[in-house]
């Protein structure tokens, strides 16, 4: 052990662990403070904040600011719906197509496999600033699909990172399983569908969650390719609400809470996969 746990004196151990916990708690409080502040403040009244005093403890609980946020635009609810549609579609598509490609890259022999995979890896290192302008031109000036769901969804359908994740995981599935399935007369799709997918449940869950979160939270692309309120996602809507109502403190916090809450709920119910997702991509990078 890095820490001495065989210390003869259990008193020292308690003091040590107590100090450690205290230090961590202080840091945890600093980390959690913005989120706490957001939720607490969202429960205040929707009045203009002149020289107001922020209170760190709620004196009353009111949902009027949430109503204010939803009343601001006829499309406030639609923003949530749009985010759900976009993130949901992209997630399903990634789980399906990225795992398929990952399986092919890890287990099926075909010409050009190594070359294509290297190409994908190199592309992963290119900063997004390089592609943003041509991608915008492609969507807006060539395909003319600005301000549509297609524009929001298409570029994200299969991410290289997810292919990489699937390939890494499926590479560790024993070859014998696949060989014996072939003997039984399974074709490759049956092998993928009946054997590989069930064996890869964990990595697929991680992939689904990370993809959904990323696309729910993404701001940049939807901000670029939408120009009417009815097509905006919740993140873009929140940003516009902020700029239009710079002094409405509590409603702004209500909006922020609304945009973050679905992810909090998802996080607390599927915490294990979230935390696993962090390490799964980092191991033996």
């Amino acid at each position, binding site marked *: *052990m*890095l*820490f001495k746990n065989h210390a003869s004196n259990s008193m020292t151990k308690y003091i040590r662990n107590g100090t*450690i*916990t205290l*230090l*961590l708690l202080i*840091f945890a409080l600093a*980390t*959690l403070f913005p*989120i706490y*502040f957001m939720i607490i*403040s969202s429960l205040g009244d929707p009045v203009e904040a002149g*020289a107001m*005093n*922020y209170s760190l403890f709620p004196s009353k609980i009111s949902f009027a600011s949430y109503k204010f946020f939803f009343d601001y635009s006829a499309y406030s609810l639609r923003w949530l719906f749009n985010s759900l549609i976009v993130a949901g579609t992209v997630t399903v598509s990634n789980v399906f197509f990225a795992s398929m*490609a990952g399986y*092919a890259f890890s287990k*099926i022999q*075909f010409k050009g496999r190594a070359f*294509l995979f290297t190409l994908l890896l190199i592309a992963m*290192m*290119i*900063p*997004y*600033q*390089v*592609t943003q*302008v*041509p991608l*915008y*031109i*492609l969507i807006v000036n060539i395909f003319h699909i600005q301000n549509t769901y297609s524009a929001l969804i*298409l570029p994200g*359908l*299969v991410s*290289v990172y997810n292919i990489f994740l699937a390939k890494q995981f499926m590479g560790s599935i024993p070859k014998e399983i696949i060989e014996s399935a072939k003997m039984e007369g399974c*074709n490759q799709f049956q092998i993928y569908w009946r054997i590989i997918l069930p064996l890869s449940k964990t990595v697929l869950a991680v992939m689904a969650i990370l993809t959904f*979160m990323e696309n729910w*939270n993404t*701001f940049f692309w939807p901000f*670029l390719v939408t120009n009417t309120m009815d097509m905006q996602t919740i*993140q873009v809507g*929140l*940003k516009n609400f902020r700029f239009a109502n710079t002094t409405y403190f509590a409603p*702004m916090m209500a*909006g*922020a809470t609304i945009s*973050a809450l679905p*992810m*909090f709920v998802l*996080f*607390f119910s599927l*915490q294990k996969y979230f935390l696993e997702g*962090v*390490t799964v991509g*980092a*191991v*033996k*990078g």
Partner: protein
Amino acid sequence: MMQATKTIKKRKVKGDAGWGYTFIAVALVIFALFTAYPVASAFIISFQEYKPLGSTFIGFDNYVETLSDSLFWKSIRTTIVYTILTVPVALFLSFAVAILILPLKKWMQTTFKAVFYLPAVASGVALSVVWLWIFDPMPSGILNKLIGTVGADNQNWLGSSSTAMLSLVLMAWLSSHGTSIIIYLAALLGIDNSYYEAADLDGATFLQKLRYIVVPCLKPTTLFLLVTGVIGSFQVFQNAFLMTGGGPDNATTMVGLLIFNNAFKYFEFGKAAAQSLILALLIAGVALVQFKFLGKEVEY
């Protein structure tokens, strides 16, 4: 008989290749259309003055203009300052926290991991809204109140060029360490106990164990976090865009934001493309240097 199996094998491999191409088809089309084509296109656009109806080819003008633009160099400097202030500190904090979490009971480890990861789950826009109010320049603002208790003067956090960068850095310190803490902790748990036992026999102190066992064992992890952290930091855009808009007086205009402004505020697509390619080159260079100097003894 031999020949028969050979042909079967051959046919199988051949058949499988078809499946291989089928399985990667969708991924490949999406990749070609939305990554490969844009990258190739970026090269072409960077040599043009872009107009929707027929661009004009202007050679290296965009590059020359960029490299002689003081604002571009300022944005590079700003980006480097931001990176130096955020990445190493965040790494050190994460390392320290991971070490502190290590001796705790399993359920406490999980709880702390979840707590520290929570800001990463919230959207950047939501966090920016909250931090905007924390940095409220009025004396009643949260941070001003806090520093007021120790007697410091009221600050115009995001609005003054002397504190705007510091404010963004502070925000980064407190909301972006969750991932690295978890990765560090996983690496710490992977260190074999026999190392510590051997060190204990030699009577090593806690600090010696840290110095001679933990730090070397975690070197690959540190390198990974450092390289990904620096790469991410060089591309940073969102917080500056949402919190300060790059101001005041371009004090927080990082390269990512400068490129965005050139592209979508001034619609100088050619210039933006050229700048993005210079940025890509810069990032590749920095990553290579890091691997070269720090990666010497790292085995993968």
